[in-house]
């Protein structure tokens, strides 16, 4: 078991013929991820990577022909909203958006639209998912983790890899690593992933990597306290960051005191979550 992606994932790559798309498709393929199709409007009928992957003009036609059940998005930021709508309307159950820099109002519209649809979105501006030994969907380096019983959820990029590497060095394997991304408006959040890990028979403990801003970690603390039976270890980046440049008075009126690393650490510690002071300390705090 694992969450969200595994051997049965039939992956579609939106924006497959761009530089990023093509490079990471090759990386995912060499990890033996089951990539069934790519989409680039206007290039339907082409094949990429020495004829390994067929390219379609639209997501719907790719799904119709190949039965893709997950999509990873590498299109330029200005096309992210449209690419997600296209994938959602084709009823793809999982959409992972790697692209960073999507306009926030575009993402708000996407998020509102998703609220009445069953598609799950990861990202945008995220490294994607890795279920070691089964599927790599996104840009997480595949060689730094092996299959095991630790679930990892992170808002960060390289910091996530650092944690995966530290687990690896300590002989600890990973069930699935989910990079949910750091954008203010995004798809799945900590709680959504914690819920899946709690239900996943292969996951015995969860590592949560948060950072300053927003209150996802505080909400996660409430969820953990009420619903989690599996141990959770957390690291929160940004304790040394200066008080953020708040936006007008509105920022203060919306956020109050939440959003600081202190507030997050306190919320998590108060319900018994162990907090690492630096990434390499994480493996030692995991007791499974």
């Amino acid at each position, binding site marked *: 078991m694992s969450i969200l992606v595994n051997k049965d994932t039939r992956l579609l790559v939106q924006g497959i013929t761009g530089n990023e798309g093509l490079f990471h498709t090759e990386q995912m393929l060499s990890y033996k991820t089951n990539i069934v199709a790519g989409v680039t409007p206007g290039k339907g009928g082409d094949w990429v990577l020495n004829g390994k992957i067929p390219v379609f003009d639209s997501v719907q036609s790719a799904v119709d022909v190949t039965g893709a059940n997950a999509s990873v998005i590498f299109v330029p930021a200005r096309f992210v909203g449209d690419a997600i709508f296209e994938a959602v309307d084709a009823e793809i159950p999982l959409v992972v958006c790697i692209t960073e820099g999507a306009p926030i109002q575009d993402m708000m519209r996407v*998020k509102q639209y998703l609220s009445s649809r069953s598609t799950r979105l990861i990202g945008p501006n995220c490294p994607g998912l890795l279920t070691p030994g089964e599927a790599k969907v996104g840009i997480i380096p595949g060689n730094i983790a092996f299959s095991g019983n630790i679930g990892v959820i992170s808002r*960060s990029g390289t910091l996530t890899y650092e944690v995966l590497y530290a687990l690896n060095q300590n002989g600890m394997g990973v069930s699935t690593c989910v990079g949910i991304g750091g954008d203010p408006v995004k798809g799945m959040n900590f709680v959504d992933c914690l819920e899946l890990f709690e239900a996943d028979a292969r996951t015995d403990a969860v590592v949560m990597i948060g950072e300053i801003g927003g209150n996802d970690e505080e909400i996660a603390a409430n969820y953990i306290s009420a619903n989690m039976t599996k141990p959770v270890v957390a690291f929160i980046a940004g304790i040394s960051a200066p008080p953020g440049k708040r936006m007008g008075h509105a920022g*203060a009126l919306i956020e109050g005191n939440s959003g600081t690393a202190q507030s997050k650490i306190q919320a998590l510690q108060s319900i018994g979550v162990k907090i690492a*002071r630096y990434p390499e300390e994480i493996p030692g705090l995991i007791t499974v």
Partner: protein
Amino acid sequence: MKLQEYQSKILFTMYNIPVPNGRIAESIGEVKQISEELGGRVVIKAQVLSGGRGKAGGVRIAKTIDEAEEYANQILGKEIYGMPVRKVLVDEMISIDKEIYLSIANDRNSQKPILMASSFGGMDIEEVSRSNPEKIVKRVIDPLLGLRDYQLRDVAINIDLDRDYWQDFSTIIHQLWKVYVDCDATLVEVNPLVITSEKKLTALDAKVVLDDNAMFRHPNLNDLRDKDAVPPSETQGRKIGVSFIKMEGNIGCLVNGAGLAMATMDIIKELGGEAANFLDIGGGANAKKVEESLRLILSDEKVKAILINVFGGITRCDEVAKGILSAFKEIQTNIPIVVRLVGTNDKEGLRLLQDTELIPAGSLLEAATIAVGKAGEGKA
């Protein structure tokens, strides 16, 4: 991208949101001339992007043209929170019956736009929010449906606004919403929106922040970017394609990834040191970017040690090490530099650095300990 008040005011005028008469001035002569045009009683407001401008003496009320000249002289060229004041806005003096707070902002919690209003507007609005949160009316807006008419009325009702003003107030909110949507704003704020003694609603301040990610849709607005409004080092960071923020400490940091950069600064602090900057070099670590970033870090004379922390993922650590070595061929410095490499082929990478001036480190704890130690020596 934050707009200056005078820029926001122009935007408001385009959307028929009432603002006081007035213009921008860059010299005392201009201030004098505008004050004359406006009849002498004016407000002079420093145009800087930091908040708390009023409390820092950047806003003065002049009763005569001579006073206007005097205050302009005090404000123009002054620094407010480290930023030089190059422009002042000279507005007609408005007599105020009541101050209202009004804004539309991105709300991270609901992941939607949020409309906020209060009849306790003015400088103390944040205090009101703490002591009487029920006095701030908040309404989430459906981003697909947009702001509904009934919500406009609903807000007017709930801030106990006199019925005579409902229509005008609703119109102003509606126009603010249009600014928010049309310009891809992340914040439009009016504090205070005043009821004048002539019983008119007027936006006495204007704060607009635009979404940098959406500027491709608004090339004209992008021209409003005020290059004087951010420290030159941050502008330089933008130019070389890295994310750079100046801080107060003496340990320069160069890291790939924002989260890892923060974690690096955190451990420095944990060990009693302090970072001189935040620098996220982004994906990979090619020689040229490393070189330019190091020059940027070294331009800060406070820096006594540098910590380079790079995770090698798809780019392997041995390649990263080569990039760093090649960058240092171009740079001469006596400042100690600790390089920590982690990830794919990290051992090979560190080996490449062994016979150089650079100090290789395998763990973040080790690297930070060395850097904090070296910076301390430099101080002593």
